[in-house]
């Protein structure tokens, strides 16, 4: 039985490692004991970090079985993959904190033996939640960096796929991996990413979204400038296009960049179905987003200032639905929009099942009651509900937040200047988008700068045999995706 030895062994002399041991001993889960009464070796480790099986079967049983005199002997005898003899205190500290077993001699011998026995608590790989797709792979990233890299590497089994690892966070010491394919990805993008991650000076790094905000070109922008995805297939796919992926230990998602606005409207599913359907769905999403941003502001603008533009038949419907509502259109719209936001927030904070109930209660009960009570018009209720629905069609979650947010300034301007206000606000948003960059690459590409070759996979997705080149805007080193060979199919006559 291991006897708890606390505080640290008195005999211990080496000040640096000793300090470390005594510092760690403050924690209840730190174990430090002498192997045997007559043995010169001390063993220390964090009980919560190590795998008990390794400790008992691979280490303690061997150590107790025979008499060792030096650490080298132990090193040879223990059959564990990662064993290291070192004198460097900082590396000792680091590895102990990662779940290594520390073995040292009582005497003033400078070196310590570190046996890797870390225990990895991790979730099983599950299906993607936010980017679910009906067809195609159903794997999603988990919180373990190694598993995540494994999921990608398995899809790109070539040595050119490289991973650079960095440690970020003064306190959290988070492992961050920058993955790219050498020979395809632009070195400049890789260097920019690595340099920006190295420049992060913050004590904790819990998730990729921290990085996304910290290394964004414009951190104040509501638009995300790196795509956040939980799908390894999507990540692998964009890596092969020449992008750079950033993975963070403990985060079930990957960041990829450089990116452009159009990428936020492309679901990975678009590639899994026939190109014509994929293109149509993409256009529908684009329309949905435009509709989502503009419909309520246009309602407010037209009802407040320009009743002339409403056709007669529609006018009758609108007037009778608006009749008797005590609030001006702007107030009505803001209240309804806020209600929808409220429902969304409440739904998001609650477990799935309860969330669904909230949605139903909010949508049906509150909506119907509000109309019947004469507080809102049913036309606006339809418009607001549709635009909320439309904002969720974007495959990337972050951008749908941005879309819902920018609706409010639009509403304000619509109230101030009617249709002209909507135009003014659009001009402002566009000015922002024009200035925005992602890792230094223009965010509105391929629309501006107009690049027709990149259009093949932007607003629409053309068939794979038209996708001969990688997107040019991120300057891939190797542009060609496939070898073009002329097909005989077209020249054949009917019935030949």
């Amino acid at each position, binding site marked *: 039985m291991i006897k708890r030895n606390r505080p640290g062994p008195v005999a211990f002399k080496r000040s640096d490692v000793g300090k470390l041991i005594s510092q760690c001993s403050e924690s209840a889960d730190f174990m430090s004991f002498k192997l045997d009464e007559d043995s010169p070796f001390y063993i220390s480790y964090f009980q919560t970090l190590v795998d008990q099986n390794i400790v008992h079967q691979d280490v303690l049983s061997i150590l107790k079985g025979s008499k060792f005199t030096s650490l080298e002997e132990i090193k040879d005898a223990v059959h564990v993959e990662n064993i290291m003899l070192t004198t460097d205190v900082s590396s000792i500290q680091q590895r102990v904190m990662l779940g290594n077993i520390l073995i040292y001699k009582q005497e003033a011998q400078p070196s310590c033996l570190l046996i890797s026995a870390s225990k990895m608590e991790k979730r099983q790989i599950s299906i993607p939640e936010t980017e679910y797709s009906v067809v195609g792979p159903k794997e999603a990233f988990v919180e373990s960096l190694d598993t995540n890299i494994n999921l990608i590497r398995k899809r790109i089994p070539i040595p050119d796929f490289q991973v650079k690892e960095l440690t970020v966070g003064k306190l959290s010491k988070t492992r961050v991996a920058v993955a790219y394919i050498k020979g395809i990805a632009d070195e400049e993008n890789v260097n920019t990413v690595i340099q920006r991650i190295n420049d992060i000076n913050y004590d904790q790094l819990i998730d990729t979204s921290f990085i996304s905000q910290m290394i964004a070109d414009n951190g104040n922008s509501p638009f995300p400038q790196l795509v956040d995805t939980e799908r390894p297939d999507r990540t692998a796919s964009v890596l092969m296009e020449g992008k750079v992926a950033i993975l963070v230990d403990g985060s079930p998602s990957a960041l990829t960049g450089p990116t452009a606005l159009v990428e936020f409207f492309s679901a990975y599913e678009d590639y899994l179905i026939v190109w014509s359907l994929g293109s149509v769905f993409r256009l529908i999403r684009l329309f949905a987003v435009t509709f989502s941003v503009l419909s309520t502001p246009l309602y407010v603008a037209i009802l407040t200032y320009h009743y002339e533009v409403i056709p007669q038949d529609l006018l009758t419907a609108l007037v009778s639905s608006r009749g008797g509502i005590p609030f001006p259109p702007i107030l009505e719209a803001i209240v309804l929009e806020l209600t929808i936001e409220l429902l969304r927030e409440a739904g998001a904070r609650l477990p799935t099942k309860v969330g669904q109930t909230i949605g139903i209660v909010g949508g049906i009960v509150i909506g119907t009651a509000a109309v019947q009570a004469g507080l809102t018009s049913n036309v606006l209720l339809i418009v607001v509900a549709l635009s909320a629905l439309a904002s969720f069609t974007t495959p990337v979650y972050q951008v749908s937040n941005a879309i819902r947010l920018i609706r409010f300034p639009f509403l304000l301007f619509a109230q101030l200047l*009617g249709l002209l206000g909507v135009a003014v606000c659009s*001009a402002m948003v566009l000015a*922002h988008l024009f200035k925005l960059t992602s890792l230094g690459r223009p965010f509105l590409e391929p629309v501006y700068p107009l690049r027709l070759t990149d259009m093949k996979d932007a607003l629409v997705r053309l068939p794979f045999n038209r996708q001969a080149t990688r997107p040019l805007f991120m300057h891939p080193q190797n542009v060609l995706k496939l070898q073009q060979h002329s097909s005989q199919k077209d020249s054949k006559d009917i019935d030949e």
Partner: protein
Amino acid sequence: MLPLPSEDKKVSPYLAFYIVHSMQLGVVVFSFARTIVKEAGHDAWISVLIAGAAIHLILWMTYQIVIKGNNDITVIHRELFGKWLGGLLTLLLATYLMVIFVVIMRAYIEVIQVWMFPELQTWYMGILLSILVYLYVMGGFRVIVGLCLLSFFFTIPLLLSLLFPLANAQFSYLLPVMEHSTIEILEGTKQMAIIFSGFEVILFCYPFIKQGQRSHKWAQFGTAFTTFVYLAATMVPIVYFSEGQLEKTIWPTLTLWKIVDFPFLERFEYVGVSIWLFVMLPNLCLYLWAATRALKQLFSIQQRKMVMPLLFLTVFASTLIENGIQIRQFNTFVDWISFYIVFAYVPFVYLYQLISKKMRRSE
């Protein structure tokens, strides 16, 4: 003299198409048909074609000037006319750009005041427009050119909306062709040529275009497209309005929009005036950008520090013009300057440069 801009500040040559096109198109699309029809009657479309051809020539000269000088006009001025005279010319040109800025801004504000919000104060809308211009100009040349590109896409509704009046068109209004005398048609051409002006900013932004020589072709295409748009926007009012009616109508294009009729939207003019913001905004932005760039070359003041004071000045100036009659008087005056800048000044600089190069070579 400033160093030439670095590669990442430059734009691709094909964007010259959008720069030239969007600069030639502006608020004036609403009203120009009447001015030329007053001169050339139903033959006004011939004036548009002749003016388009003339502008192609002048644009060629403009490009020759900047290609030979391989820099913007401020540097070329200094090389040709020396520090003081050249500087003075640059200053005058920059002033001209700012005056046009005021004209465009005031004209658009007037359209809004007449068609949408009669009670909107000039300075109020002026400040709002200035904020927009500020946002874009501070973004630099690339961002402004992006706006030019955008404005091109917004001219498409204009072209499509011109199809609606054709249902009620009476094509006999166009006949007989060439009924008006050559003098009348040329009078119309003169009016039209002024409307085409705006491409002069090429003189300032040439160094910002990658492979400037290759952009020449695109600039000419841009002018051709503008000619097409203006041709359509002249022909349609001629066949839609009777001649007596057209001469009375101040904004024929906007009046045409009144009959555009969708199942979900009628009276397109309200939407049209709002969308037109995107068509006139690049004009404002590029004029201001060019003016501040010129002043930077002259006095080496940072461009960003010039933007705000100049905007305040223009808002102030535009409030001084109070009503439609004053706007049209001021317009006529500025048109007169524009005409001479395009048809006298540009050819003059071109010839002067040609001769001085020859002289230098023979020396």
